[in-house]
């Protein structure tokens, strides 16, 4: 028991691994084949420690084309500066796109510093991460166009309550960044989208879904971790890197997710 506690508190939370995920889709595969697409999420940074340095080392070794970051960079109402420092060290050949999570809005005033210089409306010079707040970017590749959408559930438009881009007419498939995996249910089943989400931490410890449900963690009960498919829509939920509530991870190793897109069906 003592060994398990030591492992869960001090060893596994710092043992960041690479999780390879294959996505077979004619459109995404055609556009993104041979590109290194990476997702990280739920960093909950208190200080630039061992786990954060290891994550950056992995990212640098992967030399990614695109990095997607799906929210929760800080501790609840904590210091935002270490998270900004981490974001300043994210680099990718094509770009880094991100959305914010509920923890990032624990101080809405400080949350502005993700996009702006402190005390002004000027764009931040601290990092090159592009935050999407209920907005869409379109990136052109030699083999087609990629829509990258960012769903902002917390600080979004009060008139649309964060659902503004759900009803948008998608003529081409989209990668949707959403901190909460529950937003998957807002997307129609016939839409060819890939949602990248986090928030669950994979539960941090292995518990059955029904128990998460009883404890009030609907997101974990429904979408704890991994790939989900319904109709044409798909979602990958990463168990993330940091911890919240308890500084513990047991058989839920922190992960950097690398996506491999292929236009061909699974063999």
């Amino acid at each position, binding site marked *: 028991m003592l060994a398990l506690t030591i492992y869960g508190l001090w060893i596994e939370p710092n043992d960041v691994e690479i999780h390879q995920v294959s996505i077979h889709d004619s459109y995404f595969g055609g556009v993104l084949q041979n590109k290194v697409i990476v997702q990280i999420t739920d960093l909950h940074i208190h200080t630039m420690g061992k786990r954060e340095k290891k994550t950056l080392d992995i990212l640098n070794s992967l030399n990614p084309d695109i990095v997607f970051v799906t929210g929760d960079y800080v501790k609840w109402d904590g210091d935002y500066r270490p998270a900004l420092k981490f974001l300043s060290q994210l680099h990718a050949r094509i770009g880094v796109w991100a959305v914010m999570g509920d923890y990032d809005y624990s*101080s*809405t*005033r400080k*949350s*502005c510093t993700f*996009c702006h210089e402190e005390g*002004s*409306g000027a764009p931040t010079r601290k990092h090159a991460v592009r935050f999407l*707040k209920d907005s869409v970017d379109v990136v052109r590749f030699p083999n087609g166009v990629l829509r990258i959408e960012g769903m902002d559930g917390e*600080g979004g*438009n*009060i*008139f649309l*309550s964060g659902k503004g881009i759900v009803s948008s007419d998608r003529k081409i498939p989209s990668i949707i960044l959403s901190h909460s995996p529950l937003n998957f249910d807002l997307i129609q089943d016939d839409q060819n989208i890939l949602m990248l989400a986090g928030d669950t931490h994979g539960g941090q410890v292995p518990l059955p879904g029904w128990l998460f449900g009883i404890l009030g963690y609907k997101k974990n009960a429904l979408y704890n971790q991994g790939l989900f498919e319904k109709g044409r829509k798909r979602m990958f939920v990463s168990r993330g890197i940091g911890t919240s509530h308890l500084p513990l991870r047991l058989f839920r190793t922190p992960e950097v997710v690398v996506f491999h897109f292929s236009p061909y069906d699974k063999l």
Partner: protein
Amino acid sequence: MRTIKNLLFILTSLLFLLSCQQDFKEIVLFDYESDKELDQLYWSCHVLYSVSNDHATHGSKSLKLELFPSDYPGMIPVLAVKDWRDYREFCFDVYNPSEQVVQLWVRIDDRKNYPDSNDRYENKFVLKEGNNHISIPLESLITLGSNRHLDLAKIHRLFIYVHHPIKKTTLYVDYILLKKDG
């Protein structure tokens, strides 16, 4: 001499109690006298908030709003007082430094999950140049479409905003309060 002293004491106490009673006739929700009060706002895109020494109508400072062109820039204060049943009127002051009138909207929700436009209170006020006192009788808080009186026991959200400004608009807000009768 002793009697005079006692009378003076009683008189002072009465005056103090009366002044307290006067205070209880209103509750100041937000006065924006220090930078700390800026944390009692939900910060969002396209708005800059700061505490200003200009155009205060209560205390010595006001809240300066710099609203940039966007859909609905404005302010959503974090409401500590959500039960408004004991009050008669919701009031605040707004200073418009521009020569042009500004149309200011006030939205009040009594439901947490972002009620539709027909199920919330929303009203427009025309701000002339200079100081404007906005006063909203709570009995007039009726939803737009469903004609329902807001549940004053459960006021969830206050949103003061400008609708699609085409250029940067600056306003100074101060002395947001609830008033009782009398």
